[in-house]
């Protein structure tokens, strides 16, 4: 059963990687780690398709939740108690490293603009434009209502256009 499920996830792997990268942008969590942990959940039987929505929407939801868990874990590791116990300084924020190291200027501009949007808006836009999700599928993957997803989509798109215009005045 686990092998069957992992095999069915193979065609989704490149898209899962892109989604994990988006979820991890602006944080110090690595998308490789998130994908590994998500696959581990499947192998151990901790993550099972619920039957609500497609396999892809379920898998993207798992990746999103795994990213959140990892971000919480990293925050705790950087907390004062942990630093005192380990006697090591906090690691520096790397929020802007992705945008600064991106060689393609167009992609860099898009990433910077997306990072300035509220998280939900950014997620909905990424799912719709990057992964060709319908707004309904995006709402399932994000665990929000269809109406909310529509609102995030419209507001996010308008704001993204504004940001792209201001970052590229010429």
């Amino acid at each position, binding site marked *: 059963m686990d092998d069957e499920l992992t095999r069915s996830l193979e065609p989704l792997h490149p898209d899962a990687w892109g989604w994990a990268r988006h979820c991890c942008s602006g944080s110090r969590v690595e998308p490789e780690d998130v994908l590994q942990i998500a696959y*581990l959940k499947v192998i151990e039987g901790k993550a099972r398709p619920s039957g609500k929505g497609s396999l892809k929407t379920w898998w993207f939801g798992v990746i999103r939740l795994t990213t959140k868990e990892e971000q919480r874990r990293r925050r705790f590791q950087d907390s004062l108690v942990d630093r005192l116990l380990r006697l090591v300084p906090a690691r520096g924020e790397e929020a802007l490293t992705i945008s600064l190291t991106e060689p393609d200027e167009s992609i860099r501009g898009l*990433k910077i603009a997306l990072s300035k949007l509220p998280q939900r808006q950014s997620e909905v836009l990424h799912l719709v434009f990057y992964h060709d999700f319908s707004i309904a599928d995006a709402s399932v993957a994000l665990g929000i209502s269809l109406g909310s997803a529509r609102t995030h989509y419209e507001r996010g798109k308008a704001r993204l256009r504004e940001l792209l215009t201001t970052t590229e005045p010429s």
Partner: protein
Amino acid sequence: MKPDPSSDTDLKSRFARQRRADAVASPSFAGTLAAARAQKASPEEWPPLVWIYVPVAAAAAISALIMPLLGEKRTSPPLAEVIPVLLPASPDSGTLFPALLFTDGRVPSDSVLPLHLDFPL
């Protein structure tokens, strides 16, 4: 590339370009799965909850040592030391003073004499 408000093609092309760039950097499925299986085989040496349990246990042990010491310091003083301080002034002290001035200075032996007043004997 200037965004075109009339359609979404500008946004779609931007995201498509990002998708192509991400696909190049994507790790292999087999490699990621193998790493996940290896992670299962060797779980973390220090589970995250240890960082909660250890400080709580240490705080409990320290408080268990300190609380008895604090309890000893808080023992109340003997009752005899507290009572004279708390005694109210005698209601008859105003009338008692002039009477004493005209006597031969003998201290009355009754118990109504206020103890906190200083008599010129």
